[in-house]
């Protein structure tokens, strides 16, 4: 087994070899080197054809039309375009948005920015298991609410929100719904039509595609337009300027095509590993599962360990590539705000570990992780002044 073992698929996945092959080909072939906006010549049209094929592949995974897909530099930009772009475009209709405390920073910071510009934001707090009740969404709607932005699968806990119920409420009240599906696309089935989703953010690198490319689905009937955040040469229907990166979107298209094929097998694979990990780790006295026990996506397991400090815990896990709630290991300087919103005290939020699994994960790696974590916690507790019952 190669050390450190990679358990951080929710942060980013290795690019699928087929996708790498296609991207390398695309980068290597001079006849595909043209700017896909250079429709005046054959080389430009060849690049453009690749872009459009990718758009169709991305659309297919979520049952959208190709012209409802706007390529962006990632889900962060897609989230910004959905939230800020919708808010600006519909400001005459109202200046109130509903979101939650456990969204990704891309949504949270977009909303906070809007708040500085005069919008009102209702921040929904999840229950202790990380779920937002659809009734809470309904209760938060006001006559001038223009957008509800809630994620599908939470990137820290893996809980799956009841988007269908929330969407039905939004339709009933004629409010637009934006869903951040960066963690769920390719892992959970998504149908924007059946699911009545108006805007949906996607990222390629969470599902074996390249980093630096994503997309925003914009329902043509219900949304039609949002205000662009960047200005330039009119690419992507004027909503997202800048030369479209042919190899990047082609890679995303291929990754999404593969994801559609592999989804059921892959979901089974990661769910089995997650269950194996949890049944190993739960022997540990004082270990807590973060997030709802059933309503969760298969690729994430998030636990908190009482009586050990986060940074030392994390330091003890050097042979595992995992994410931690510990402040010093991430770009932001706070303990996981997601776990805090679930009501975990700061210390428990910091002593959390997020394991996330993917195609290359194996049962042997999970066995190793169980033993390794048990040993590390035992060491830390051997000199801890805090009494953990059963330890």
């Amino acid at each position, binding site marked *: 087994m190669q050390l450190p073992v990679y358990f951080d698929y929710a942060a980013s996945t290795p690019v699928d070899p087929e996708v790498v092959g296609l991207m390398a080909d695309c980068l290597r072939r001079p006849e595909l080197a043209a700017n896909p906006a250079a429709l005046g010549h054959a080389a430009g049209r060849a690049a453009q054809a690749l872009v459009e094929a990718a758009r169709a592949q991305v659309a297919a995974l979520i049952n959208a039309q190709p012209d409802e897909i706007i390529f962006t530099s990632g889900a962060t930009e897609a989230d910004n375009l959905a939230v800020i772009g919708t808010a600006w475009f519909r400001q005459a209709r109202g200046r109130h948005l509903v979101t939650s405390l456990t969204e990704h920073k891309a949504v949270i910071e977009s909303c906070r920015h809007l708040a500085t510009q005069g919008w009102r934001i209702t921040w929904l707090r999840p229950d202790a298991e990380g779920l937002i009740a659809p009734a809470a969404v309904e209760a938060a709607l006001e006559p001038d609410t223009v957008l509800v932005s809630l994620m599908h699968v939470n990137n820290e806990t893996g809980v799956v929100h009841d988007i269908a119920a929330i969407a039905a409420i939004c339709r009933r009240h004629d409010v637009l719904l934006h869903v951040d599906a960066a963690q769920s696309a390719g892992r959970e089935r998504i149908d924007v039509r059946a699911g009545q989703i108006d805007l949906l953010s996607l990222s390629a690198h969470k599902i074996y595609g390249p980093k630096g490319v994503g997309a925003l689905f914009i329902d043509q009937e219900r949304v039609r337009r949002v205000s662009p955040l960047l200005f330039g040469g009119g690419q992507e229907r004027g909503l997202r300027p800048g030369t479209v990166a042919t190899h990047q979107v082609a890679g995303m298209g291929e990754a999404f095509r593969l994801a559609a094929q592999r989804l059921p097998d892959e979901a089974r694979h990661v769910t089995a590993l997650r269950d194996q990990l949890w049944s190993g780790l739960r022997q540990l006295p004082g270990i807590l599962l973060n997030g709802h026990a059933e309503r969760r996506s298969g690729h994430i397991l998030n636990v908190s360990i009482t009586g050990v*400090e986060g*940074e030392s815990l994390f330091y003890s896990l050097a042979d595992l590539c995992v994410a931690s709630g510990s402040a*010093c290991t991430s770009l932001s300087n706070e303990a996981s705000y997601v776990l805090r919103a679930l009501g975990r005290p*700061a210390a428990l939020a910091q002593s959390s570990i997020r394991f996330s699994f993917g195609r290359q994960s194996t049962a042997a790696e999970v066995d190793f992780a169980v033993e390794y974590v048990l040993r590390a916690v035992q060491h830390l507790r051997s*000199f*801890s*002044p805090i*009494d953990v019952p059963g330890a």
Partner: protein
Amino acid sequence: MDYSSEVARHFAAPRQAGTLPPGPGTLVRGEGGSVEQGALVVFQARIDAGRVVALAWQAYGCPHVIAACSLAAEKLTGCTPAELGTFEPLCLRGPLEVPALKSGRLLIIQDALRKCLAAWDNGDQRSPLNKRN
């Protein structure tokens, strides 16, 4: 976060960690910090014939705090009780290469050691060995 090899060594094999068994002399105890602050340390000292003949610690904290407890315990064993109070934990910054941002955390070691001295000065000999919740 980068840790020096000295920190790594203490973290992997901390010296004098744990609690002191009952024995001759006087056992005193002091703590500093709290879980809420992100670091809690407990020191115990056995004082006999005017010397700190044994010292042990427990810590909930980052690797720098743990290494600092380990190194401080090692350094102070054999000192006079008064030296527990005058010990300057910032002197551990150099050997452990503690970054400036974190050096404040070392002060909780000072708090714990001073409380040991205060307990000694108060003639407090009940040493609450049981762990906290």
